[in-house]
């Protein structure tokens, strides 16, 4: 057609991919991670003037340099994994729970409260039972509040869960001052240091408990999401609320129930942090892991097994970067920079999994 030639078509055209083989999708992700590691090494080289190979060695040493380091790596991995798993059912339902931080904190606060207030009123076992129940309940309530608003009035859950984080932080700050030891120090210190009341029992060594809990939660979450009726309902609600209603599911009920679970599991992570690992509470005890977990869960495409690897990647890198900082006298926030770089690459590479770029053939070629 004569007039068609006037039509200026763009050079390339982006279309949604139909489906991509799983292998190829992971290939793209691996390439992205490798590229990110190269950039990380480059950045580190520039800042430390060390040679890139020894940087990788240092990162590895930071995570696995000694038995203790290895245990700590796995303990950190466990906590991050539990929080990520906790957020996952909510995300599968397309409920953007970025309140993991607050749910962990409030769970930790509940544990600390039991340890402090019940110290001279109950046996150790009684205290621990109370801690378990109250921390899970506290986390669940923190998840319930935004879920209720969402179900009832469709309140934006991203912003609501975000606010809940800071309310939790301030509550912890309030009780930190109230329970501070010694007065005026602004911190609680190790709780029940002499009696060890409310300290979660050690299994083997002091790291193993969290690891065992993480293994159980991972397996449990995998089964819950893939084989339980609840998990199935979550998946259907997340994919299409219309379909959920069509088969008679109560969407509001599913939202509330799922957030109770999500918040409760975060509370459990708080229990481990306070009762099992630190034996104290501070406002920064969750250390931003509630946010990191959002990314870990998303990177794993909400698959609990894959999440072991994504949380490992983040923890490994964080500890490795910590080692680099120590060795070269740099600030410890170095790990955040490396984590950020890795995240940007993986986030960006998803595009190439879901979309494909078609370059237009020029008109001349087409007519040939």
């Amino acid at each position: 057609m004569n007039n068609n030639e006037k039509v200026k078509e763009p050079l390339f055209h982006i279309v949604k991919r139909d489906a991509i083989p799983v292998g190829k999708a992971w290939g793209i992700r691996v390439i992205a991670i490798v590229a990110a590691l190269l950039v990380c090494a480059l950045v580190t080289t520039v800042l430390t003037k060390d040679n890139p190979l020894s940087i990788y060695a240092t990162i590895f040493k930071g995570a696995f340099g000694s038995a203790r380091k290895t245990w700590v790596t796995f303990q950190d991995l466990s906590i991050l994994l539990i929080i990520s798993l906790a957020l996952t059912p909510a995300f599968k339902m397309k409920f953007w729970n970025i309140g993991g931080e607050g749910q962990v904190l409030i769970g930790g606060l509940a544990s600390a409260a039991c340890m402090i207030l019940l110290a001279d009123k109950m046996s150790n076992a009684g205290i621990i039972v109370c801690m378990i129940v109250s921390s899970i309940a506290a986390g669940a309530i923190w998840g319930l509040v935004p879920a209720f608003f969402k179900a009832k009035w469709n309140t934006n859950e991203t912003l609501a869960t975000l606010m809940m984080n800071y309310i939790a932080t301030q509550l912890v700050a309030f009780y930190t001052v109230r329970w501070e030891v010694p007065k005026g120090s602004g911190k609680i210190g190790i709780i029940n240091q002499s009696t060890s009341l409310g300290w979660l029992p050690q299994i083997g060594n002091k790291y193993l408990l969290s690891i065992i809990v993480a293994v159980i939660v991972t397996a449990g979450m995998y089964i819950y999401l893939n084989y339980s009726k609840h998990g199935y309902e979550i998946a259907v609600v997340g994919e299409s609320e219309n379909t959920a209603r069509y088969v008679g599911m109560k969407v509001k009920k599913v939202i509330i129930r799922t957030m109770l679970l999500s918040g409760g599991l975060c509370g459990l992570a708080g229990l481990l942090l306070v009762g099992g690992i630190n034996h104290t509470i501070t406002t920064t005890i969750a250390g931003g892991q509630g946010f990191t977990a959002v990314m870990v869960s998303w990177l794993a495409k909400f698959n609990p097994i894959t999440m072991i690897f994504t949380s490992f990647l983040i923890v490994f890198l964080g500890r490795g970067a910590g080692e680099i900082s120590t060795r070269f006298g740099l600030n410890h926030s170095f790990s955040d920079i490396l984590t950020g770089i890795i995240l940007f690459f993986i986030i960006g590479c998803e595009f190439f999994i879901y979309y494909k770029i078609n370059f237009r053939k020029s008109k001349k070629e087409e007519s040939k």
Partner: protein
Amino acid sequence: MIDLVAFIPRAVGQGIPLLYGSTGEIITQKSGNLNLGIPGVMYVGAISGVIGSFFYEQSIKNGGTENGFLMIAIPLLCSLLGSFLMGLLYSFLTVTLRANQNVTGLAMTTFGVGFGNFFGGSLIKISGLDVPSIALSKTSTYFSKSFVGTDAGWFGKIFLSYGFLAYAAIIIAIASALIIKRTRVGLHLRAVGESPTTADAAGINVTRYKYVATCAGCMIAGLGGLYYVMDYACGVWSNDAFGDRGWLAIALVIFTIWRPDMSIFASILFGGLYILYLYIPTGMDHMEYKEIYKMIPYIVTLVVLVITSMRNKRENQPPASLGLSYFREER
């Protein structure tokens, strides 16, 4: 009784970074981008300015002459550049590559806060210079120079005692409000955030609006970080001192129901609430209640969020396409 003449200037000082952050985020959200990376951007804006000014002050020490214009221009431009690059990164990932906005934003915050603290803590080491700490007192005097001295009356203290970035924040907020409300660019921006499909059909370049709004929003937010370190903190960088103000700025966006002009008062109010505990006598035995007062802004914001969703009044809702990426062929 609270001494208002002493209290208000401090509340304003606390409020200005929030005002920058919320104005930037409002512009960004109006285009449909929920940028949770603002806390990181504000750190980057602060540290970029610090880096620029640090090297300039060092060069002066080494025999250069002090130029008042450069004293202000160098940190300002460095800060704008740093936060612009963050905005570009966010736009590229979420608009061009259509990545999830929540995840991208959180990654930016991780990166940005880490970036700020890292260079804040390691700048001296990396540059190999022999100085004890980052104290940009010279730059700070330029940034905090105000119309009146310490002997000013109540009027001077409340209205005239701030550095130029404070007034700039208010001007930018008013200008943003006017642009959003009264100009064609603002109208198109609102349309893009509400319904990119409709905007696209009307011939508006959705991608360009999202990029420009996000980058401009980040640059404005970054200035909040710069104000904090250069004016409020007197040029002294200390890690994590900026704290969670970035998140509070995002809360302000909801609190002001997406209106930068409202944010001027709301920021100062939040700033006041942030330091109110210093002025409410709790007695030495009950210092903990100060922490409860600090909770007020967040609770109020949550309540506002819930009430607006309950009343379901359309103007007070978040932009309809907030958090969603736009793909023309998916209708």
